[in-house]
């Protein structure tokens, strides 16, 4: 099943980008997503470029932004004092990710690129998967679809993005910095991941010869009052069935002056709940308002044979996450 690959270690960012110009090349950082994909036969590069030693693991705190290097380990980002204090929702999402062992290896950049855990994608014994084999169909549509999408899906693909971190990044207005052959560019987190549409084989808008170098978290009035709620089938080390990253700012009269909501486990990309946000903005922060916003966001949701429950679960999770951030000190 597995096909051997050649190995080279990049000396710097330019070297990495240059080496990636050749087709069949994959960047390798922590390896925690790549190696299972490779062992399952889902990734078969002819060569890997080890970027693990590039000087991209720093976490830099400035007045207006926290810059997390792409090679920062999830455990190190989660434990960073400024991230815990200024971006609690992100720290919680990182700590809710995977296991302690994996968090010691996995990187922030790699987590942005994490592939879906859809059973039909991950096991080549299933003949149908448009993500793995475009045009072959979607095994999940009529199959066992408990973990699958309820928002933004297409007839071609109902897979979900499995990352916790991405959901928090979506709520915190993160910007992904990438280096390509023609220099650097910035990709707002909302534009980084894609909905499946008719090309579910393409997860992100990152080009093959582009290297993620950092994630910027801008200072916002709501970041310190952020929270990540993860619902899963066991207490720890499981992917989200539904998750919510919420952040809020309220004025002295309890009116909502800024709010961010993003959902995980429900879509092909971290789902920024903009309809709910619009509902909430300017309203009094209370349970009734939260419930109405949740109803609005999930009005267009579509469930399948085994995941209809996610629609109600997502609504309740939104209300609970917003109630939690209201209880946090501003």
């Amino acid at each position: 099943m597995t096909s051997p690959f050649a190995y080279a270690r990049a000396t710097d960012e330019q070297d990495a980008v240059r080496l990636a110009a050749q087709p069949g090349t994959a960047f390798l950082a922590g390896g925690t997503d790549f190696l299972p994909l490779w062992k399952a036969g889902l990734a078969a590069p002819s060569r890997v470029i080890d970027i693990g030693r590039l000087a991209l693991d720093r976490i830099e705190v400035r007045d207006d932004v926290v810059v997390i290097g792409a090679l920062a380990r999830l455990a190190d980002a989660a434990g960073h004092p400024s991230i815990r204090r200024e971006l609690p929702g992100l720290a919680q999402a990182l700590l809710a990710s995977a296991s302690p062992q994996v968090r010691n290896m996995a990187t922030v950049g790699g987590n942005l690129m994490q592939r879906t855990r859809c059973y039909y994608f991950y096991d080549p014994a299933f003949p149908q998967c448009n993500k793995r084999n475009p045009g072959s169909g979607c095994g999940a549509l009529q199959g066992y679809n408990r973990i699958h999408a309820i928002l933004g899906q297409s007839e071609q693909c109902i897979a979900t993005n499995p990352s916790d971190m991405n959901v928090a990044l979506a709520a915190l207005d993160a910007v992904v910095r990438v280096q390509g052959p023609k220099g650097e560019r910035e990709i707002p987190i909302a534009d980084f991941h894609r909905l499946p549409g008719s090309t579910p084989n393409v997860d992100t808008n990152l080009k093959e010869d582009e290297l993620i170098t950092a994630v910027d978290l801008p200072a916002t009035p709501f970041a310190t009052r952020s929270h990540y709620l993860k619902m899963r089938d066991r207490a720890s080390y499981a992917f989200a069935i539904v998750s919510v990253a919420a952040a809020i700012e309220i004025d002295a009269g309890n009116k909502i002056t800024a709010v961010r909501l993003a959902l995980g486990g429900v879509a092909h990309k971290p789902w920024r709940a903009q309809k709910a946000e619009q509902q909430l903005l300017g309203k009094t922060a209370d349970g009734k308002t939260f419930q109405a916003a949740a109803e609005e966001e999930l009005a267009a949701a579509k469930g399948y044979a085994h995941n209809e429950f996610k629609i109600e679960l997502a609504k309740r999770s939104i209300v609970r996450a917003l109630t939690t951030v209201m209880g946090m000190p501003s």
Partner: protein
Amino acid sequence: MSMPTETVEIGLTVNGRSHRLAVPASATVLDVLHDCLSLTGTKKGCDMGSCGACTVLLDGRRVNACLALAAQQDGREILTIEGVAKGDALHPLQAAFIARDALQCGYCTPGQIMSALGLIAEGGAQNRTIGDAEIRENMSGNLCRCGAYANIVSAIVDAASSPA
């Protein structure tokens, strides 16, 4: 700019001993421990990072050896279960696993012990008492199909409160 190669020369310190090895580019640390160094105490369970049976300490931090590519580890230090005891003297955590009967079949035990060593080290210099719930959460990367979890938690509590 380095050229891609099928075999990679690496230096590894394993349980205090230095090794120079030529490893296949696609070999994991787990495979190298077994196939090149005959250290079979580190177990291959799922080989996909889900069970924790292959947990080792890499530069002092717990990782899944099945998810670590050997070629990437040049110059690093690895501690496996074989390096935990001092001669015939068991590490206090090993002794606690025996005293608490924290295993049945024993297949997951090397990974449980290495993970718990990593957990205790992560507690840092504060030397604070770790509660049961925190241990359960922080040992969630290690599965025990025999279900010895209650006694594993007790053994870790014992070892964490009596410094090595």
